[in-house]
């Protein structure tokens, strides 16, 4: 994680002037549903999609710096060009048709890989006419049934060159077919390697800035709320519905010439209701959720995962993570850090008012975020059945928490702009409480173990860019809600934080 923000912010400020004119020119295309307060900083622009096409954009990937591939849930794949000018100039070219609910796309070595419901297919335009002619079954080792829940998301190759597919349980609750409820790696040769057990119902998979892989899992069995989970080879993500495949998966690995990195079937807790912390002790391979999204407070269905690779062209959050959220039609922001070898961090609201339900998210180095949307079968606040929108930074830096880091006795907050020392230095400007959720076989969980923390001190750094909070009562295993309603900007004593609330998931407390 990049601890130095100065360089990014400098570029950010320089970019303000460049984009100011474009704001006016593109005003006509902005989202009608986006709150005015957000538009000042980030603008959602509706991209006109091909007429007559139900553009339920579920999967997206960049094919080069300036060309994107988008797959619709009805199975068509479009190549998208002219991405960074006026949205009206964006061009769509049909590349393939008839895929089976593709929700993952990866471009690699002149092949476009798509995770369909039943297989990983790869497409190639061999004769050079711009349209795919080869549809090769690259891997069909994972099992499937007709059930619609069996959504499969796909991540580009990791450091070892293997793609990752995250496979939803059947009915989001059982695993009648091989590898349902697992994450698997697909080698460059097309072999499937069982890799992480314990998946329930993924909504998206993607990397952070350091190349660590994460996926979003939806609230349900063994998942008390929605979680961002860290995919570590050989680990267990928490849901036990797919554990039945351990023996077969291990034999599968051995047959393919790999040593067993999965370990044994961990079984499941004897007690009907436990907590994530209990499961960590019971099953050492269980990786505690990196981020617990408080249910309803930060949406209800987290989806696509990207990190900001634009080095400031997208504003002050370079290197941080953005995740889609279908139900609330928004994109949230995540700050991550590693503590005692475990990933954790904070989630903040970012941009809302998308026209449908964000599923696919793509970040471009040019500093534009593209959000593919569909709400069929899922529902979303945005009332359109589908959409394809672009988020553009206006150049205006919002007054916002930049990072929230845990300390042995509290948290350090950094900000995008200097804080007013009087308000930011007053502990009464903050409020913190925490809770967690059951870890149980039943569906979801209420909030449990509510605890109030006490902010005993708030120390503002000399440059006004950070505040050190001393907090009593931080609970390992809880998500901590931090409200910062009282904090004001140094520049404008009227201006509070753009989003004055964040949720930090404490898996580990540093020494």
């Amino acid at each position, binding site marked *: 994680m990049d601890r130095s923000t100065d360089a990014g912010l400098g570029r950010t400020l320089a970019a303000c002037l460049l984009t100011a004119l474009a704001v006016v020119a593109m005003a006509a295309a902005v989202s009608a549903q986006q709150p005015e307060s957000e538009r000042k900083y980030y603008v959602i622009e509706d991209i006109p999609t091909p007429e007559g096409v139900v553009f339920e954009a579920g999967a997206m990937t960049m094919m080069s710096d300036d060309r994107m591939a988008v797959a619709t849930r009805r199975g068509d794949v479009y190549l998208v060009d002219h991405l960074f000018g006026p949205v009206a100039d964006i061009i769509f070219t049909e590349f393939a048709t*008839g895929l089976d609910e593709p929700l993952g796309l990866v471009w690699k070595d002149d092949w476009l890989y798509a995770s369909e419901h039943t297989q990983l*297919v790869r497409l190639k335009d061999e004769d050079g006419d711009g349209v795919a*002619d080869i549809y*090769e079954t690259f891997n069909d080792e994972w099992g499937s049934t*007709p059930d*619609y829940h069996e959504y499969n998301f796909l991540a580009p190759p990791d450091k070892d060159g293997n793609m990752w597919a995250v496979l939803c349980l059947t009915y989001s609750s059982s695993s009648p077919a091989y590898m349902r409820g697992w994450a698997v790696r697909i080698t460059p040769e097309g072999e499937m390697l069982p890799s992480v057990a314990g998946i329930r119902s993924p909504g998206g998979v993607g990397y952070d800035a350091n190349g660590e892989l994460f996926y979003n899992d939806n609230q349900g069995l063994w998942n008390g709320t929605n979680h961002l989970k860290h995919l570590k080879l050989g680990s267990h993500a928490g849901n036990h519905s797919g554990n039945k495949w351990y023996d077969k998966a291990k034999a599968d690995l051995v047959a393919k010439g790999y040593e067993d990195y999965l370990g044994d079937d961990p079984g499941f807790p004897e007690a009907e209701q436990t907590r994530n912390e209990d499961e960590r002790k019971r099953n050492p391979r269980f990786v505690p959720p990196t981020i617990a999204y408080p249910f309803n407070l930060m949406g209800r269905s987290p989806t696509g995962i990207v990190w900001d690779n634009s080095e400031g062209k997208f504003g002050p959050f370079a290197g941080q993570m953005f995740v889609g959220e279908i139900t609330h039609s928004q994109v949230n922001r995540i700050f991550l850090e590693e503590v005692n070898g475990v990933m954790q961090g904070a989630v903040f609201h970012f941009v809302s008012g998308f026209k449908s339900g964000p599923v696919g998210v793509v970040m471009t180095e040019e500093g534009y975020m593209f959000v593919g949307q569909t709400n069929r*079968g899922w529902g979303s606040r945005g009332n359109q059945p589908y959409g394809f929108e672009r988020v553009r930074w206006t150049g205006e830096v919002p007054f916002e928490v930049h990072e929230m880091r845990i300390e042995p006795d509290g948290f350090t907050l950094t900000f995008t702009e200097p804080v007013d020392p009087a308000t930011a230095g007053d502990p009464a400007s903050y409020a913190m409480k925490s809770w967690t959720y059951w870890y149980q076989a039943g569906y979801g969980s209420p909030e449990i173990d509510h605890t109030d923390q006490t902010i005993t001190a708030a120390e503002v750094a000399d440059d006004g860019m950070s505040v050190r909070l001393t907090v009593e009562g931080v609970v390992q295993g809880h998500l901590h809600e931090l409200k910062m309603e009282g904090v004001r900007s140094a520049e404008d004593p009227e201006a509070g934080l753009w989003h004055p609330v964040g949720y930090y998931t404490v898996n580990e407390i540093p020494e």
Partner: protein
Amino acid sequence: MSVHFQRGGFAARSRPLFARLAAPLGLLIVPCVGLLSCGRVEFDPGPSPQALEMGRDVYNRPGSCVTCHQDDGGGTPAMIPPLAGNPRVIGDDTERLAKVILHGMHGPVEVNGETYSSVMVGQGEMLSDLEVASVLTYIRNSWGNEALPVLERHVTPVRAAHAERKLPWTVAELNGEPAPDLAAVDTSDPIAWGESLYMTIAQCASCHMPEGQGVSGSYPPLAKSPWVTGDIERLIKVTLHGVGGEMTILGNTYNNEMPGQGDLLDDEQIAATLTYIRQAWGNNAGPVYPDQVAALRERFADRHEPWPAEALATAEGNSILENVRYRTVELGDDYEAYRLNTPELDALPTLHEGVFADNFIEPNKIEGRFDYDAPFVVVLEAEFEAPAEDLYKFAQEGQGSAVLVINDEVVFAKDDISGKHWQGQTGEKLLSPGRHKIKFYYGNPDKHRRFRLSAIADSVGRPQWQWTHQKTNVISLSNPAFILVPERDRPIVLRGRFEGMGNLGLAVGHPLRVNYAYDFARSQLIRLWRGDFVNAAGVWFGRNDKHLPNIGEGLIELSLRQPLAHLASPADPWPDAPAKNAVPDGYDLIGHRKVDRLPVFYSRVSDAVLVDRIDPVPGVDRGPASVARTLEATASTEDPTLYALLAEGASIEEQSPGVYAIDGTHRVVLGPNTPAATIRQQGDRQLLVSPAEWSPITIDLGAWALKKTDMQPDSPGFRATWELEYQWIDQPTQASAER
């Protein structure tokens, strides 16, 4: 000028018109009418005020002459010729004028040096001879025109002389030139043919205008209209039978009547005309095929009235149900003894009851449905008004049992309360217009109390017909009419799950109106059917969890066994068909490659590669198409043990050399280079099997196709080929012989 939308309104308003006329003409006129002797009543020498008044009335009826020719008789540049100052209007050839009004005409026509291209529809069915005469008299004496009146007796013989005529006159005919030979029209391109039909005999352009823009306030536009580019069945029904009543199109309201064209045009003409309008003027929708028209013509053969517009229109967000109420019943411990829809169950005491205020069934609002410790039965009742006679489809999904009863008749039933099945039940029922009672039972022995229910008019895709509320999350949008139709030059290739196969497969809907499904696991072409392809509603609305059924006709179920097999001895039995989702020994589907927009399938079969190419071929004389198939094995060695399975059935009969009839449903015709096949009996099945005949080749398959084998591109190898053609049994046998 056209009043043909006004057929309904005319009868009602004509009576007061005659009543008004009768008063000034006095007693003389009234008996005249009865005695058919009005010819004696002359208006001499100039036009009578009565004739002018009647003519003005006819001319100015809404949607009548005035709509096109305007209230100043000026017409519309380039389209509608003026009447004011028009030499033919004031000329002496009143027979020609009567012909035009009675039967219509289509242009282009030249008036005062300007050319006008449009179609005018004949008004003979709408107007009496007296009215024709009066309106002619009116236009000959308005806007500065002056001419002798036209009298009823001038019109009557013209009508009598052309009593059989239905079509408008061509200008050439009116000018006494020979009529164009309609048979000479090139019908091979449906769009060009459709355009000529649209402008001429189909008479569309007279109201909807040559550019499809319609006439504001009177005739709806076709350009960009969802009624044109949307649901094909609705469009065909409107064309066949007409439509009347209020409709809102592109934000404007129209209230008119369009007569059906089903008697005027045949299926191919309608298909071509509709194909044209669906892609003209910026429209971009798929074609309409004659068999689609034929199917609806047959299904609604008894319909002779236009459809009420409200029966075809969509009304977003409104439930069609009224008075929706529910009650849950107390079952007790021996719930397994009960069946849904029985007097015993109906007699059980009520646990909870309620009504759904907005008339949508909302499962989430049923009280008690989360009481996990008891089996759960709910009885829903409601009424609804069917707007038109139609075949209504009903669908239900959920875990448990369900029975749907409409007007005391069961539409579908799974009445076993202990059943824990996931189910998707459908049923259909022909309903007359008017009020109908529905009763829906739903039962579940465990806690998954989720059900979905929808009802949709067969012809129109409209999710608002679903009975559960869209706002809840337990709804599957269903739209049984979301039928995929291939473009004229573009087959539909759809990956997914299809009836008759496992989870991995592909189906093709071909513009020649033949369709097929290929099972990836079995590497086998398993089904052929004709006509309509598939209904995508099951996967494209709501959630994608269906094996799509084929919805056309003439289903041919081909063999489920592997297409190639190694037989150590020719007498060895052919391997049994693998179970669904199972892969035959030695098989592995490599993928497919699109060639001319159609998939060619590649499979590894042991150490060989099978390339399976399926090509629909046109029928003779526009007859039904058949399907050619080439199986091609590529290997590095000549393997004498390789055989191909070319047909399977309960009975295979060789009709002539290389021509085999299978089960009375289809024929398999072997290509001339296909090795001789033999019929073998295996259990109660007969199989047609042919050995490999290998020829040396240079291996021409791409690296991607060879990667699971030991073969290298461009190395020496061998190829065995089998060519065959599937023909439906009603197709002429010579079709293949000519190829």
